């Protein structure tokens, strides 16, 4: 088997850019010493070019031509520099130091480049952290919207058993995500060691479940966002009692507010 027959199939693959890197290296070594194979490779590339023509279809859009014409107009080219043939030249002594100066300049440039890259890296990390923070806020806002406007959300208006300053309480509860939002106003202020506690009254008649403690601001207003211990608990209503600040496991009478759907 001669070299040419050995490489015949491989040349065709090489012409199509379809050989692995190791095979390409072996073939290129052979091509450097074999004019016949180089000639055959050129012919195979010609065959590949003809194969390419099978894909020719519509011309590129006119806009592409306009962009190209504009691009070359923006890149006026200088005439090519013709190289002179140098037979021999006496070199001034100071030229000896040129490589050193160039090396120094390159070293300084590399240092500047490294510092720029470091700065950009820090900025990138800060931007990524900011993005993560924004995404987290967005996620929380989306969950809140799901509670307020979700298809399964129910709202309950709770009124005072003894109406003094027209206090009002509204809850929005989504059983699907197990989360509720409470908005209240004109609530009576409580002693420092006391807090209001919201109770979910299960639809299945089970015992009231703690649904978060809260304290109104000096004006009596408050908003609470609370996640239940589990999702999927259907509520028939909510009630509010006054409890120790840490909350209670069972409601302490009297019930201050109650509302059922």
């Amino acid at each position, binding site marked *: 088997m001669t070299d040419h027959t050995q490489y015949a199939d491989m040349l*065709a693959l090489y012409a199509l850019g379809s050989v692995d890197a190791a095979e390409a290296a072996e073939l290129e070594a052979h091509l450097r010493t074999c004019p016949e194979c180089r000639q055959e490779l050129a012919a195979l590339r*010609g065959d590949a070019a*003809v*194969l*390419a023509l099978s*894909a020719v279809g519509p*011309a*590129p859009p006119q806009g*592409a031509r306009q962009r190209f*014409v504009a691009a070359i107009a923006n890149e006026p080219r200088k005439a090519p520099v013709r190289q002179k043939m140098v037979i021999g030249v006496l070199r001034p002594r100071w030229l000896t130091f040129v490589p050193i100066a160039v090396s120094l300049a390159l070293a300084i440039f590399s240092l500047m480049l490294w510092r720029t890259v470091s700065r950009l890296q820090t900025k990138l990390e800060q931007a990524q952290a900011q993005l993560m923070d924004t995404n987290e806020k967005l996620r929380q806002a989306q969950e809140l919207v799901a509670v307020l406007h979700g298809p399964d959300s129910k709202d309950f208006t709770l009124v005072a058993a003894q109406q003094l300053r027209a206090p009002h309480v509204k809850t929005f509860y989504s059983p699907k995500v197990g989360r509720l939002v409470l908005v209240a106003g004109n609530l009576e202020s409580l002693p420092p060691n006391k807090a209001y506690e919201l109770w979910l009254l299960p639809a299945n008649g089970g015992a009231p479940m703690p649904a978060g403690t809260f304290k109104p601001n000096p004006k009596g207003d408050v908003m609470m966002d609370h996640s239940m211990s589990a999702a999927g608990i259907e509520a028939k209503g909510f009630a509010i009692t006054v409890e120790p600040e840490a909350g209670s496991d069972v409601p302490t009478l009297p019930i201050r507010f109650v509302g059922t759907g």
Partner: protein
Amino acid sequence: MRLSGNPMPKNEDEAILIDRIQAGDEAAMTEMYDRYSGIVYGVALRVLGNTTAAEDVVQEVFLRLWRNPQSFDANRGRLAAWLAVIARNRAIDHLRRRPPEEDIQGMPISTGVNLENEAAQRLAVEKIRAVLSELPQDQRRALEMAFFEGMTHTEIAAKSGEPLGTVKTRIRTGLLAIRKAFA
């Protein structure tokens, strides 16, 4: 890659066009674009399947030629054939999201097919399509996978379930069939 090949008969018209482009003649570059952008775009579109990406390849191929017209040597091949192969290579680079893999300078391409004007190109396109339609389906598919999809023979063998030797032979005989049809 720069490998020496046998000198090709020089196309005077193309050589003049390249000379004008080397002198910075924008009109000559636009003329070249008008003459051959259909080939470059068609090949890139076939490889990438996306008009925007194909337009990018057209822009890149012709801009590289504008910036470096001496990369094409009129003594070593026909411009249309050279552009077709360059377009395919650049499109595959885009497909694999990698930087240009091959130095485009001095790639000798030898073909006797006349592609220098629109009528000649149209005739050649019709003919190659007819030739491909007459090839056995497995052979045509192997050629297309290698050229338009940029697959190595190992990948083609794995995908088609054919032995490696069969794939190699199919590709070579397919290319030789094209050459014979255009001889």
